[in-house]
Every structure is written in structure tokens, then in C-alpha cells.
């Protein structure tokens, strides 16, 4: 049977079955939840909506399985489509997450405030450096961009900033080599082996900017956060 006759069969079963509205409902719910998980700002809410979206999809697929009296292949196709779409989505979001962050934080290229930063990062990896308006000292990498807050620029001297930038540059250099499950763990904000990754990034940063600069940057930022 080809996929067209499968769909035809699905249409017939759909009309006859009392499960039909159920399936449609859960598909709609899962799409809404997935959209919500991308919009929400708090990691905890995102995680909850992301997991609920997955559960809703699984319920929809299970219901489809019960609904198909004549053929079970469509369930398989549906599942396959779900796997392909969600994988593409996860990688696309990880790759283009910096665009979202640039507009959300109203971030600007760091070249205008410290011209050396972009050149320094260019030597390590291909990534853009942005700064954003916040007094809280913070640095992070997303997609192919490094973000630093003005609070961090205030707090650290040039050597310490180099250590922080090298640390974030390592993350970007190794993003493509980070195994899929780790990517997923970062995406869903559960920290599986993040400390191991952080340690490796620190070793790299110490090699580039010197161990002293790294540890003084750490102690300054830790003083703020502990």
C-alpha cells in the first residue's frame, strides 16, 4: 500500500471512529505547547511545556494506532514525521537561538565598546561578540554568538574578559561536536553532564588567556553569584 491509500484509509477510519476529535485535539494541543515552550522565558516553564508537548504527541500517536482498523502503517509514518520534524526543529533552534537572543536582549555588536574583543574571538572560532544592557555580570554562548552583559565588562579587566571569551568560544567551537543527547539536554535545560563541558571549556580558556586571568575572573563572578 502506498501512502495515499493509507491516507484514504485513515480518512475512512477517521469518519467512523469516535477517537477522531480526540486525535485532532491532542495534535492541536501539542503544537500549541511546543510554540509556548519556545516563547516562554523561564527555564522551568519551558521544560514543563516542552515535556507536555511530547506527551500530547505520544497520546495523539497512540490514539491514531487504536483508530486504524484497516492498517497500522500510518501510525508509523506519523511517528517518523514527528521524529524528523522535532529533530530538525531542535537543531534549527540551537543554531539560530542567537537571533532570538539578539532581539530579546536588544544586543549590539561589541566592536563599538571594545574593539579588541571581536578580533580576539576571530582567532579562536567564527563567532560574533555582542553586549547587552544589564548590570548583572553574565556571559553565555548561543548559536554562533557570544553575549556579555555590560555588568561583566564593568567588573572584569581585559585579561579576565579574554578568559571568559575563550571559555565561551570553546563552547561554540565544540557545539557541532557535542553529541545529540547533550544538545537535547541543553535544549531542555536539564544539566546532564554540563559540569564536564564547563571544565573542558575552562581548560581551553586557561590555555589561551592564562590560568591566573581565568581564576580571578571566576572568583570575581562567583563572588557575585554565591
Amino acid at each position, binding site marked *: 500500500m502506498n501512502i495515499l491509500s493509507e491516507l484514504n484509509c485513515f480518512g475512512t477510519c477517521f469518519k467512523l471512529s469516535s477517537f477522531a476529535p480526540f486525535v485532532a485535539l491532542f495534535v492541536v494541543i501539542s503544537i500549541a505547547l511546543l510554540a509556548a515552550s519556545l516563547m516562554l522565558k523561564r527555564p522551568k516553564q519551558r521544560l514543563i511545556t516542552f515535556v507536555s508537548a511530547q506527551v500530547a504527541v505520544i497520546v495523539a500517536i497512540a490514539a491514531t494506532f487504536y483508530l486504524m482498523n484497516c492498517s497500522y502503517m500510518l501510525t508509523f509514518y506519523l511517528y517518523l514525521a514527528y521524529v524528523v520534524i522535532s529533530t530538525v526543529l531542535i537543531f534549527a533552534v540551537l543554531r539560530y537561538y542567537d537571533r532570538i537572543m539578539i532581539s530579546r536582549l536588544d544586543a549590539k555588536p561589541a566592536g563599538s565598546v571594545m574593539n579588541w574583543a571581536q578580533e580576539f574571538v576571530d582567532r579562536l572560532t567564527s563567532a560574533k561578540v555582542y553586549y547587552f544592557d544589564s548590570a548583572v555580570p553574565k556571559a553565555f554562548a548561543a548559536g554562533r554568538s557570544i553575549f556579555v552583559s555590560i555588568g561583566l565588562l564593568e567588573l572584569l579587566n581585559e585579561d579576565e574578559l579574554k578568559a571568559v571569551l575563550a571559555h565561551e568560544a570553546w563552547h561554540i567551537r565544540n557545539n557541532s561536536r557535542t553529541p545529540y543527547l547533550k544538545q537535547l539536554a541543553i535544549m531542555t535545560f536539564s544539566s546532564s553532564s554540563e559540569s564536564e563541558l564547563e571544565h573542558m571549556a575552562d581548560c581551553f580558556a586557561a590555555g589561551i588567556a592564562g590560568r591566573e586571568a581565568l581564576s580571578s575572573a571566576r572568583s570575581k563572578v562567583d*563572588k557575585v553569584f554565591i
Partner: protein
Amino acid sequence: MVKLDQINISNNGLTKFFSPIEASILRTLWNDGEMTTSELTEKTKIPLTSVAGTLDRLVKAGYTARRMENVNGRVRYVYEPVFSEEEAATEITTKILDSLVDAFGPLARENFSKYSDKK
């Protein structure tokens, strides 16, 4: 206005209307004029941990303004109050009187005139 929805009558001074950290930042800025983040942490004696987030909030709420300065390749914020103490006092008083009139109507107005007569 930052926290004007929650007024704690039993608190002292500005902390009736603001959180303790917000109050001490505003007080320092009103007394000494514009200053950098490090000057603020020195004068208020509150660690950067607590001040940084609160400063972001005060700026977002429109109580303080900050500009970025670039001195010898080093970046820093300079903060200044958006309203003077008088302007803030006027706005807070008006809001509270409005809410009293909203709750008690003519009774509130009667008490206002009694209060000013007493003075």
C-alpha cells in the same frame, strides 16, 4: 513606579513604598547625584550581587536612568535618578490620596481638610 501596589505602612521611611535595596539606592542617588556602579556599592554598602539585579529593575521601572561611559577602553555605567525626591513624593502622595478617595469617597475628602486644618 516600582512597588506602589504594595504599601507597607508599618515600614520606615522610603521602605514603605520600595524594597530596602531599592530605597537605599534611590536615597543615595538623591543625596549624591549621579554615580557609577562601584560608587553605588561602596556608598550603600550592599554587595553587587544584590545591587545589580535591583538596578536593572529600577531602570526598567523608569526610576533611574543609566548611560554607558567608555573611559580608556573600559566600559562603565553611570546612574542618575529620573525623578527628583520632590517629584517622587508628589507622585506617591497623589496616588495614595487617589486610592483613599476611591475607597472612602467624601469621607476621605472630609478627613483631608481636617488633617490640613490641624496643621
